[in-house]
């Protein structure tokens, strides 16, 4: 009989090994899946993991990698703080949308005034504020009425999507758009555009913000008392109370920070790669960031790496769809497997496997 036995202390080696093993296991299981679909598994895996970085068209894909990784990392850093504290914000997608709407609305309000020093910073602030306020809804409901923030934040994603559609069709619709849904394209409005910082690199302010978030997140968690309180509250809520942590305030802080970061991500996306508020603006970064946060062990540096890995599966996945005809659902299943294997292998951090010879008799 195989038994799991609790380790006296969590294993550090396993904590770092599980993400790598999860990636390997995903490659094997995904390869089987692709083989069943009649594709050459090695070719598909190579297209996903190799070609975007070192293949023939890597010069294009590398930029795309940064574009995708930026919002994932920025959102995941915020989420990881809450997840560490046991505050489960599942609605980053909604906060991302609301940040984009608020930021874009501020920019569009100034159109066609040209004053980049004023307008773009204001948009960034408005974006963060939009995400922050949207996250305060589950926060206040939880601290006041003890509702479950998982449900509330998740359901608010669908509310945000409705608001997005309404904005794209109503208040923010471009007057010059010939009745098509969607706002003016912010990329064509210099004072509001989040341009590439180096042409063709994919590098934009959102990525800068993501890097800053990684550094600040790391300092916060390892050095700052707030970071300690966050980890303490997640590790043991009762001990946190004993240590003088105000649980309600901590919930609001975690939701607020993660909401604001998701809002920033939304703003940088709408003013940059996406360009406009439209019905199909959100593509699931807020949900994928949950996988990124866990894949990165809720550790800022881990999240940085995980963000790039997830971005790679996106870019590579699209390439595999385009060039090899792999169905989109198979790519999504492939990405889902990653979280699945990670969580399964995580057991090894706290438990070890014992094979009980005697019990077989």
């Amino acid at each position, binding site marked *: 009989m195989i038994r799991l*036995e609790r380790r*006296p*202390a*969590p294993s550090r080696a396993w904590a770092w090994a599980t993400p790598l093993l999860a990636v390997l296991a995903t490659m094997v299981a995904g390869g089987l899946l692709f083989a069943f679909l009649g594709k050459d598994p090695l070719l598909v895996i190579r297209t996903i993991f190799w070609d975007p970085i070192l293949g023939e068209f890597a010069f294009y894909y590398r930029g795309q990698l940064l574009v995708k990784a930026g919002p994932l990392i920025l959102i995941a850093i915020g989420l990881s703080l809450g997840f560490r504290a046991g505050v489960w914000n599942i609605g980053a997608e909604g906060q991302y949308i609301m940040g984009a709407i608020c930021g874009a609305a501020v920019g569009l309000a100034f159109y066609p005034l040209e004053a980049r020093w004023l307008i773009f910073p204001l948009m960034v602030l408005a974006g963060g504020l939009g995400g922050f306020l949207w996250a305060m809804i589950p926060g206040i409901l939880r601290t006041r009425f003890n509702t479950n923030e998982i449900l509330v934040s998740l359901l608010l994603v669908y509310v945000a999507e409705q608001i997005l559609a309404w904005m794209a069709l109503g208040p923010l619709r471009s007057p010059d758009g010939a009745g098509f849904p969607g706002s003016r394209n912010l990329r064509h409005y210099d004072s509001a555009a989040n341009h590439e910082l180096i042409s063709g690199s994919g590098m934009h302010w959102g990525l800068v913000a993501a890097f800053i978030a990684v550094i600040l997140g790391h300092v916060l968690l390892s*050095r*700052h*008392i*707030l970071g*300690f309180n966050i*980890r*303490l509250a997640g*590790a*043991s809520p*009762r*001990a*946190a*109370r*004993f*240590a*003088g942590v*105000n649980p309600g305030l901590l919930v609001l802080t975690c939701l607020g920070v993660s909401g604001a970061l998701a809002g920033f991500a939304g703003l940088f996306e709408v003013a940059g790669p996406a360009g406009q508020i439209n019905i199909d603006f959100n593509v699931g970064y807020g949900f994928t960031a949950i996988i990124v946060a866990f894949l990165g062990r809720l550790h800022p540096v881990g999240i940085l790496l995980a963000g790039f890995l997830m971005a790679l599966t996106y870019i590579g996945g699209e390439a595999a769809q385009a060039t090899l005809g792999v169905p989109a659902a198979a790519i999504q299943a492939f990405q889902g497997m990653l979280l699945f294997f990670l969580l399964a292998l995580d057991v090894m951090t706290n438990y070890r496997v014992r094979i009980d010879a005697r019990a077989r008799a």
Partner: protein
Amino acid sequence: MSTPLLEVRGLRKAYPGVVANDDVSFAARRGEVHALLGENGAGKSTLVKTVYGLLRPDEGRMMLDGRDYAPASPHDARQAGVAMVFQHFSLFEALDVAENVALGMEVPPPMRELATRIRDVSETYGLPLDPNRLVGTLSAGERQRVEIIRCLLQDPQVLIMDEPTSVLTPQEVAILFETLKRLRTEGKLILYISHKLEEIRALCDWATILRHGRVTGSCDPRQKSARELAETMVGSELALPAAKTREPGEVALSIAGLTAASGAAFGTELKDLFLEVRRGEILGIGGVAGNGQDELLAVLSGESRSAPDSIMLGDLPIGSFGPNERRALGVLAAPEERLGHATAPDMNLIENAALSGRRRMGMVSRGFVNWGKARAHAEHVIEQFDVRVPGAGSVARSLSGGNLQKFVIGREILQQPDVLVVNQPTWGLDAAAAAAIRQSLLDLAGQGAAVIVISQDLDELMEISTRFSALNEGRLSKPRDTDGLTLEEIGLMLGGAHDLEIGQGLSAPDRAVEAGETSP
């Protein structure tokens, strides 16, 4: 001499890293109360769990009534006539007594019949219990009766009792002992686990003493002094804490008219508390678990807030202050639950040192934690309090109970508190570790701090505290000097007779009746 009813030969049970039982042998006859005596961690619980079929031994064999006995599960054990009353009850608070008993039975009879049988058994064995009461409303002693009656309904030959008196008042202990003596005359065998020596000397016919998983001796406990028993148990001469003679100083902390609801479901509301603790004294607060101990600690530590002037530190109202504001003022606390309240289990000792020491040890400046100072504090505690760990980087849950408790107490004491509140400071600790902790509390009081010790261990409170008060259903009795306090008086205080001076005119209903016969 008749053949033994239960015989255990060469039993061995090993867990990873520890041998819980090693070559354990003993024999026990019908009509005997047989004590299994030993410190915590000596292997008593492992041994009886093996007898009850919860564990299977690695080596060795057991005989019951002359036949091979190897229960694969508690079900087998019950079939063979072995029953067990656990230290921690497994009862549903929202169900009544009869329903709880029915849940433990293989084939429960109809409810009305069961209620009658419960009444019969409870009368036969002198265990007053109403089958229709909700368990949530019962005292710990009454809950234990539910468990005992549940066992007796199976008409067992062997009844195992795991630390049955740890949650009882002296009066309830007396009732329990009467019941056990009656069972003995009926020819049943009672395996009685305890580390309370006086109890064992009063009740048991024979004792098997365990230490580090091995049998270190067996004797008739009535023929030995408590000290001799203790030394067989501990394996070395006991160091009794130094005397506690000291003139108390001015009032350090006082509570006046505090009423506080419990945050927890089935918690206990604190009702109209008055309390004063002076510099240089240890105030002992006794009482059976669940009478408001956790709530009292929370109110004192600042985890629960109250009206500002309900708690005074000297002249300063601190009732509305949080834990860290109180720590800054010198009011420190050590909760009962070592893992998950006093410490975060998965965090290391450096982080756990910062948990309570951040403010008073200056570990935080401008919001940033100085981990060097936290490490220094942790290492200081480890060194001063003889915490046996590989290093300050070990996570809290990797420590044994005794070592972690030394760390928790040391962490507070080395912050030089003016007022220290501890709840169950030696719960589950072996005699040596417990003595070390008691001594450190005495030393702290000796340096002029005011110490409040909340404990269920009356011997401990009598040993170290200068004054004694009992917590009962959220009320605190008037404190009395421990010198000259008799067991009967303590019993009455614990039983809730607050107006002790009036003596005879007690109105507390059935408890006063039980209080009639106390001294064992």
